[in-house]
């Protein structure tokens, strides 16, 4: 077990990230409020989602200051999920097409 002291960062930094998360949440809410639709809607939702997730993981969960061994061990496997998402998107599109043909 390591005796290294834990992650310590100024409270001011946390407050700034907190504020930023508030702004980003408001912006993603406004996407719905102003009925933005289509690819612009999905693009904005994903953009704000990824920015928020990145801030939480990097600053609140201190990933930005961890050693690369831990960062890669935790973050790289999540890309496996991207493969699942891609495969299931193809699968869903295929199922949808078949249903359009036979179950209308």
């Amino acid at each position, binding site marked *: 077990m390591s005796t290294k002291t*834990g992650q*310590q960062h100024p409270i001011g930094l946390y407050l700034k990230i907190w504020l930023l998360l508030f702004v980003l*949440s408001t912006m993603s809410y406004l996407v719905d409020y102003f009925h933005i639709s289509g690819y612009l809607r999905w693009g904005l939702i994903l953009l*704000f989602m990824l920015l928020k997730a990145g801030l939480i993981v990097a600053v*609140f969960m201190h990933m930005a200051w961890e050693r690369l*061994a831990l960062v890669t061990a935790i973050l790289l496997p*999540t890309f496996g999920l991207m493969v699942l998402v891609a495969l299931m998107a193809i699968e*869903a599109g295929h199922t949808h097409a078949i249903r*359009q043909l036979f179950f209308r």
Partner: protein
Amino acid sequence: MSAVAPVAAGARGLVSDWASDRQAFHVPWGKAMMWVFLLSDTFIFGSFLTGYMTVRGSITTAWPNPSEVFALHVGGVEVPLLLIAIMTFVLITSSGTMAMAVNCAYRGDRVNAATLMIVTAGFGELFVAMQAFEWSKLILEGMRPWENPWGAAQFGSIFFMVTGFHGLHVTGGVILLLIIAYKLLRGDYAAAGSEQIVEIVGLYWHFVDLVWVFIFALFYLW
């Protein structure tokens, strides 16, 4: 040191090779294990959300419009997603207070750390209460896991499963936070010489917030 220790063969060798005091992660084991747990939880929620998207992308019936289903009637106007937006802000705020609790704990300020953890748990409980209100409202309006008045039947089952699983995580986090805040105040961790546990429970709490970011975007806003 030049002499090389004899290497055991067979099953004993297998054990010694994997247990020879090598350390990959230079963090306390509790923190490394929390991260591994959170990674496995990521896969659970990742599978839920991918399953949900697969269902939503493959059905031919119309998906209910979450913007209308989750609208609240305020002052004669329908405000879309109002409760969900407030829940999002509550959870983000609880993440902020948790981050400050970690900071206080490492500075040795036990009272403020425990207070901030209790505040965090309070926001968490408020979130669960609002979720309970939302569930009750939808159930009264006729939402069931197998049918609902607004469209595709799968909407209900996915909603109850995903938000229920997340709510369960929040509830577990609240209990964990209260126990650790109590033990911190009692001085258990000061005696052991480490406040790491506050950062570890903080990781769990931020993860719960992180999952909500994805649920909010992919289920409520999509």
